[in-house]
């Protein structure tokens, strides 16, 4: 837990492209593998190949979702989107209760994101800027929880949820994920650099109590990082599969659970399943198109000291 000098306020959330730009004179030397080296055509070709590989399965989802099953599985598969998209979406919608599933997914991901942001900012602030007994030990404990797979505790969790009367309800998927160790770690990293001690001291001299400081000083400073953490948490909560699949049932699923059940149904229709997959992916793709830069920056800034 190193204390950076409080006067330094870098912007860790932005992509650190210019963070270590080499000094001008470096160009006199044979350039190293650092930033100053321009990518040649090979770099672009390699990136294009990987990029196409990354996007092709998503394109194939769209193609398969807009044809009939017979066309998709024909000996020469189609390569352009067809005209059956809305027919398939409609069929997926009715077969898998997708309407309810979408509402459930929004509720679950929304609640988890809101709670994670609030609790992790508080905890991250405490770990970054407050002095208290056992701080380092407790922070190590937080990080260690990252290494415990959820698989290890699902059996009693399932029994607990039944006891609490939450069996099959959304509460059973929301409550276990209200906080995240990654979130605490991420906010701590950000706040320890972005929040100067002077601001906290000044607020104290002005007579603010600790919670007042959180509201008026910490939260405004933390906002950019909270944005990123919010998006990362939402993506994770929206895509979560294992525990929701065990905890929820066909009558009350999230989108991912409904999708799993749609494909597990008796003789699933491939194009209808793909239409369901498309519905579950599109919202996040939209988020990625709009906020891709922030998400990329967030993952990179959260990772540096990992």
């Amino acid at each position, binding site marked *: 837990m190193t204390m950076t000098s409080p006067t330094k306020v870098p912007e860790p959330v932005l*992509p*650190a*492209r210019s963070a270590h730009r*080499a000094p001008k004179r*470096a160009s006199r*030397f044979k350039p*190293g*593998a*650092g*930033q*100053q080296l321009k990518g040649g055509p090979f*770099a672009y070709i390699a990136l294009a190949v*990987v990029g196409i590989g*990354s996007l092709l*399965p998503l394109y*194939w*989802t769209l193609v*398969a979702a807009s044809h009939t099953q017979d066309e*998709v*599985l024909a*000996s020469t598969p189609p390569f352009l989107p067809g005209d059956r998209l809305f027919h398939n979406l409609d069929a997926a919608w009715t077969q898998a209760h997708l309407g309810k599933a979408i509402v459930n997914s929004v509720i679950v991901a929304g609640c988890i994101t809101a709670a994670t942001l609030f*609790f992790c900012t*508080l905890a991250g*602030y*405490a770990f970054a800027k*407050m002095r208290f007994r056992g701080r380092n030990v*407790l922070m190590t404990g*937080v990080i260690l929880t990252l290494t*415990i797979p959820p*698989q*290890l*505790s699902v*059996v*009693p969790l399932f*029994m607990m949820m*039944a006891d609490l009367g939450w069996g099959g309800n959304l509460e059973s998927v929301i*409550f*276990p994920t209200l906080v995240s160790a990654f979130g*605490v770690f991420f906010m701590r990293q950000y706040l320890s650099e972005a929040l100067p001690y002077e601001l906290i001291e000044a607020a104290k001299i002005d007579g603010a*109590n*600790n*919670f007042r400081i959180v509201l008026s000083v910490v939260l405004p400073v933390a906002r950019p990082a909270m944005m990123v953490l919010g998006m990362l948490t939402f*993506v994770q909560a929206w*895509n979560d*599969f*294992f525990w929701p699949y065990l905890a929820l049932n066909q009558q009350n699923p999230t989108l*991912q659970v409904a999708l*799993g059940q749609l*494909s597990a149904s008796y003789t699933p229709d491939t194009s209808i399943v*793909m239409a369901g*997959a498309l519905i579950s*992916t599109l919202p*996040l793709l939209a988020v*990625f198109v709009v906020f*891709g830069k922030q*998400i*990329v920056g967030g993952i990179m800034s959260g*990772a*540096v000291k*990992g």
Partner: protein
Amino acid sequence: MATSTPTRDAYAPPPRGSQHKPADTRRQMWRSRLWRFDDKASPFAYIAPFFLVFGAFGLYPLIYTGWIALHRVEMTGMNQMEWVGWENFDKILHDSEFWTAVSNTFLIGVMSTVPQLLVALGLAHLLNYKLRASTFWRTVILTPYATSVASAALVFALVFRADGGLLNWALHFVGLGDTNWANGHWTSKIAISVIVIWRWTGYNTLIYLAAMQAVPSDLYEAASLDGASRWQQFRKVTIPSLRPTILFTIVISTIGSMQLFGEPLLLEGGTLGATGGNENQYETLSVYLYNYGWNLGHLGPAAAVAWAMLALLLIIAAVNWLIGRFVRKSAV
């Protein structure tokens, strides 16, 4: 630990009548005591939610799993627990399907982690060049991360399908194309590894890229002054500087491969998915746990599987630690 934070009201001035001297000092004392309490208690109040939630829904169930593993508990009557001692562990440790799942998990773990991290390292190196539209490339490479396990598994199930699959169609141009991917012992593991690699390479690439950008450029300058080629710089400067990050991604990927569930479950779907193929050829430990607990309804053995996974994780952690120590020593 769950002390609530005093709000503004706690410092409200006392009633007007008591404004003479002794009461004033008393008030100040009271006030400063409150301040001190606020300073002492606040951090604990802020971190309490994390530990409360983790304790209730993470640590407690984790330990309780061990207790359940010593009992007979059925899905149909979860209130009845009957003590059976080590019977559940005995049952799974003598089940060849369990050992198949262990080796599948291990193989798929290696087959997905190693290529993924190598590719990520190379990609990060490329992205570290000065590029046009660098944000665009980063975002594109990260796109699979936005796709859920379920969607990814389903679309790849279609790609790897035996009849009418996209991959077999592409392979028939080179004279192959009759592969029943999900049926083969190796091909099914390849298929699942491909799904994992597709989803996670971009994420790991960005982690490596971030670490590469944090390498001080003087190191490269010094290396190039000493006449090191670019490949030598990559090997002797970049890789050693990234060692902690690489270790971190290996740990995360190892834990991730212990959790593989959606990919095998949905590769073929239905009853085949729940047993990891007709010969359990791609059954992972998570699928085995799910099958025992949720499909067959025996929660006791399922809990025993969970603790077996915990034991495996601890073994892996120990091996990892030893290797890390060895590597560090040999590097000096």
